Every structure is written in structure tokens, then in C-alpha cells.
């Protein structure tokens, strides 16, 4: 293979992995919340963007080290989610058909955050990128890749593995799956359903925030990423099966590679059309998704 061909292949692979881990992270965050609380979080894209923008402010405007800024923003997601849970989410825990109420509620949050961003960050700049956490470039044969991007990729992969282990083997993960499968049976077996709900909401949003921060480390972010991410994460959740973490992981990676490969030949819009088409087909013929439990 010529150098040019190697560079194209390597760049497709790294972009695929990078997008794949970010998509998977956000989709896992969405699916944990939907799987437990029954809350389709349409605001996931805005939360993702919020994390990117806050990390940008903390590192660029306040001059913090980007790693510190990243940890600070992910930490800040905990009180943020807790406050939302107390103010809004908690009210609907016992409401029948609450997924529609939650959907509209999170669309309301989407509109508020989008409005705020467009009069603040939208005025200040149109591209946001964090300063590199790790400087330098590594060469793979003729192909250069920023160490920073490698670091983001590594951290995201470790996070995904940790999440998978947590949900599969830890007590909390078992309780979460029990609540998803049968809320009242889980309650009868001594699971504190409300505590699990609260934990899932906080954990899910934390994961989405982590995705946003890592994305802003690797790529520059603009305000339109929020809506794309929201729809993509929903598509991944529906195709993988709502509530299925394995489904979110696998389909997230598939989507990442699809986008990387399609972007070589055509515009990303074509990739978006293909996700949405796949999602419609799944919704119509197998609404429980490919990895349903």
C-alpha cells in the first residue's frame, strides 16, 4: 500500500474508534436513564454540549489545566443532575405513560439550553476546542495522530469498560437491571426503587458529560453538535434496544465507523439519513431493538 492509502485507512480507523467511543458513551448514558426511569432524555445533546462548553470556559477563559477543567465539569454534573431530579424528574416517578411527559419535559430543557447558548457562546465564537491535555504527536508509520486524541480515546474506552463491568457485575448494576425488568418484583426483593432511579439519573448524565468533555478534547465543537448528538444517541438506543448497555456499545461503535467511512465518499448528511432510516425500520419491525433482553 502506498503511504496515501495507509493514511486514509488509518485516519478512517482512528476517526471511527474515536466517534464510536463517544457515541457509545452518550448512548449508554441515555439508555441507563431510559432503562430505569423510563425517561427518554431528549436533552442529552444539550447536556453533552453544556459539558463541552463549560470545560472550554474553565480551561480557556479561567486558565485551568484542561485535565482539571474536565474533572471539574464531570464533577459538577452530579449536583446539576441531583437538582434536576429534585425539581422535576422526581414528580413523575409514579405517573402512568410518563415517558411522553419526560420526553416533552426534556424537549423543554433542550429549548431553554439552546436559547441560552445562542445568546452567550453563540455570540462569542463558533468553534470551541480545549487546549491539549497531552501535547505532541505519535507517528504510526506515515500516519500522525495527536497524543491528545489518543488520550481521549483511551480514557473513553476505560470509562466504557468500567461502566460495563459496573452494570454487569456490581450490586448496583444488578439492582438497576432488576428494576428495569420488573419494578415491583425488585421492590419486593428489597431494592430501593427511588434510590436506583436517582442514581441512574446522576450516573447517566455523568456519562453524557464525560462524553462531551472528551469530545471537546479531541475535536472542535460547534453549537449544532447538540441536535445531531441527541438524534444519534436516540437512534443508537432504539436500534440497540432501550435499556441495553451492550446494544448501546455495539451500535455506537457501528455508527462511529459508518460515519467515518461515509464521510470519505459523501457528506455526513448521508450518514445521518442512513441512521434515521435504520432507526425507522427498527421502530416499525422490532421496537424492542436488536439486543433486547
Amino acid at each position, binding site marked *: 500500500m502506498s503511504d496515501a492509502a495507509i493514511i486514509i485507512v488509518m485516519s478512517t480507523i482512528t476517526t471511527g474508534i474515536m466517534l464510536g467511543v463517544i457515541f457509545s458513551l452518550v448512548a449508554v448514558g441515555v439508555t441507563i436513564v431510559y432503562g430505569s426511569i423510563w425517561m427518554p432524555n431528549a436533552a442529552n445533546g444539550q447536556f453533552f454540549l453544556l459539558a463541552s462548553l463549560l470545560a472550554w470556559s474553565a480551561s480557556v477563559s479561567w486558565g485551568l489545566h484542561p485535565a482539571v477543567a474536565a474533572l471539574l465539569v464531570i464533577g459538577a454534573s452530579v449536583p446539576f443532575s441531583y437538582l434536576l431530579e429534585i425539581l422535576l424528574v422526581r414528580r413523575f416517578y409514579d405517573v402512568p405513560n410518563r415517558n411522553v411527559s419526560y420526553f416533552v419535559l426534556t424537549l423543554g430543557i433542550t429549548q*431553554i439550553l439552546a436559547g441560552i447558548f445562542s445568546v452567550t457562546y453563540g455570540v462569542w465564537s463558533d468553534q470551541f476546542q480545549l487546549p491539549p491535555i497531552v501535547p505532541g504527536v505519535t507517528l504510526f508509520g506515515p500516519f500522525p495522530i495527536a497524543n491528545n486524541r489518543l488520550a481521549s480515546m483511551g480514557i473513553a474506552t476505560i470509562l466504557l469498560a468500567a461502566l460495563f463491568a459496573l452494570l454487569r457485575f456490581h450490586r448496583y448494576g444488578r439492582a438497576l437491571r432488576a428494576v428495569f425488568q420488573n419494578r415491583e418484583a425488585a421492590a419486593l426483593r428489597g431494592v430501593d426503587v427511588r434510590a436506583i432511579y436517582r442514581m441512574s439519573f446522576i450516573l447517566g448524565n455523568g456519562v453524557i458529560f464525560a462524553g462531551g468533555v472528551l469530545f471537546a478534547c479531541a475535536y472542535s465543537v460547534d453549537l449544532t453538535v447538540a441536535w445531531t448528538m441527541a438524534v444519534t444517541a436516540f437512534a443508537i438506543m432504539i436500534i440497540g434496544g432501550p435499556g441495553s448497555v451492550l446494544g448501546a456499545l455495539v451500535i455506537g461503535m457501528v455508527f462511529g465507523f459508518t460515519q467515518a467511512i461515509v464521510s470519505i465518499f459523501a457528506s455526513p448528511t448521508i450518514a445521518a439519513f442512513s441512521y434515521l432510516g435504520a432507526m425507522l425500520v427498527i421502530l416499525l419491525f422490532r421496537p424492542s431493538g436488536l439486543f433486547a433482553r
Partner: protein
Amino acid sequence: MTPTLNRWLPHAAFAVLAFGAPLLLSGNRYFAFIAGITLISVLWATGMNLLYGYTGLMPMMFAGIAGISAYMTIGLAAIGWSFWGAMLVSSLAASLIGVILGLPSLRLRGFYFTLCSLVIQTVITLGFVYFVNLTNGDTGISQIPLPEMPGGGSLSGLAYDMVLAALAVIGTVVLTLIVHSQFGRRLVAIREDDGLAETLGIDVTRQKMIAFFVASVFASIGGALYAPYVGFISPRSFDVLVSLNIWLMVAFGGRGTIWGPVFGAVLLAPVPFLLQDYYTIKDVLYGLLIIGVIVMLPAGIAGGLKGPSRKAAPATLKAERAQ
């Protein structure tokens, strides 16, 4: 005699208001324009009410259908069609496209229908952006020519407002006729319990499809008239937030009543214009209202203040499907 009179009295009052407001405001073109936009919103909210208020469907692709009709009307008018012929053909075509796109999802219930319609709306918006030679992409189409009048000249100013007022009134009359017909009662049965409606021998999907077509006609006519009235459209004029705002007018005013959504539209449609320089606050304000409606006013202003419905047994005791 009296019950009929009682039924149509509010329509007469609304007609007086709808025709009167642009007349009174005709001295100030800006305020008359706001009245015109409000009348289009009334038409849209009435169509959305048929689906959300009476059938229990939440169609997030409502604005997309209006957009298809608007783009198509402009396109046909540009190749020499009469505006009115173009509007008629485009409205029917857009409604049919809406039904064809929505047909498979009409089998789905509740949240899954809403999600499906959101996906379809996103596809439509992406289509508006992507097919640049038809829609001029993100730049949008400006300087849209006004509709022509039968006797020559073009429809503008007060005359245009009167057409919009007439359509808003016709919209409420059509909705009232539907609601009081057997078809309307079937829709309400579907809204209350589609499983039970099916058991009673109602063809649920078919009824939903007809309701969806009628509502799409409302959306399309509104879209076709919106474009020349404002003079500019872009994919943002018909994106998911527009659907959500029309939904908000219905939910805030009071779903499932004839006049609640009309009131909601009259209250909310002028807001972005009255805020003038601060119009970007509109998004934040609408978002807060959406949350307020969901949390405190599930039945809208017409239904009064109530908490989230807790009619059913606490879900801890209630069997739930796993998705």
C-alpha cells in the same frame, strides 16, 4: 335551535375578532403583521389539536409537513403556476406525503409514535438543507412573490390578513364539525383507550390515518400561506422546535377543547415579535412554559391548575412492560 345557536355563537365571536383585529391594526403594518402570523398559528394549533387534543397523537413532524407544502408552492409558482392552484396541489401532496411517511408509525403507540415522528421531522429538515437546488439550503428563499388576485394585482396588506382570518375561522368550524360527528367521537374513543376502541370494532389505524390527513391539510395550507406572507423561509422556519411550539400552543391553551388552543395561539404567537430585540429569549421562555405546562397544567389553561395525573395505582404496584 338554541343548542345549535349556542354551538356556533363562539365561532361568530371569534370571526368578529379575527376579521376585526387586522382591521383595527391596519394603521400599523407591523402590528397587523403580528395579527396575521397569529391567525396562521391559530390554524396550525387547530390542526394540531385534532391530533394531540382529540386523537391523543403527538406529531412532531407537523412543521415539516407545512414546510413541504411551502417549498412546493413556491417552486410551482416559480415555474409559472397560479399561486392558488399551486397551494391546492401542494397542500394535498404534502398531506399525502405526510400520511405516507406517517402511515407505518400510526400503528405505534404513545412515546414510540412521537419518537418516530421526531425522526421523520429530522429527515424532512435534513432534506430541506440537503437538496440545495430545490430549497436553496440553509440560506433559505427570500423575496417570495405575493399571491396574485383574481382581478389582477397581488394580494397584500389588509386583503391578505382577511384571507388568513377567513382560514382561521374555517379551521375552527371544520374542527367543531369533526368533533361533533361520529368520526370525532371515534377519535376520542381512541384517545381514551385505543385497545378498547379496537374491541368496539373501530378500525383504529384507519381513523388515525384520516385524522392525520385532515390535520396535515391544516398544516399545509398554513405553510403555503406563511411563505409569501413573511417573504422568507429557510429550513429553520419548519424545524422540530416549530412543531414543539405549535404543540405548546395546544397544550398550554388546553388540549381537547376547541377554544383552548386558539387562545394558546393568540397568547403565544405574538411573543417573539413583542420581545423585539430580545427575541432570542423566546426560546428560553417557551422552554420554561413547556416545563410549566407539563408540571403544573397538564390540561392547559382551559383545564385549570392540577398536578401530574395520578389516576392509576402507584406504579410500584402496577405491572409495566419492560420498555
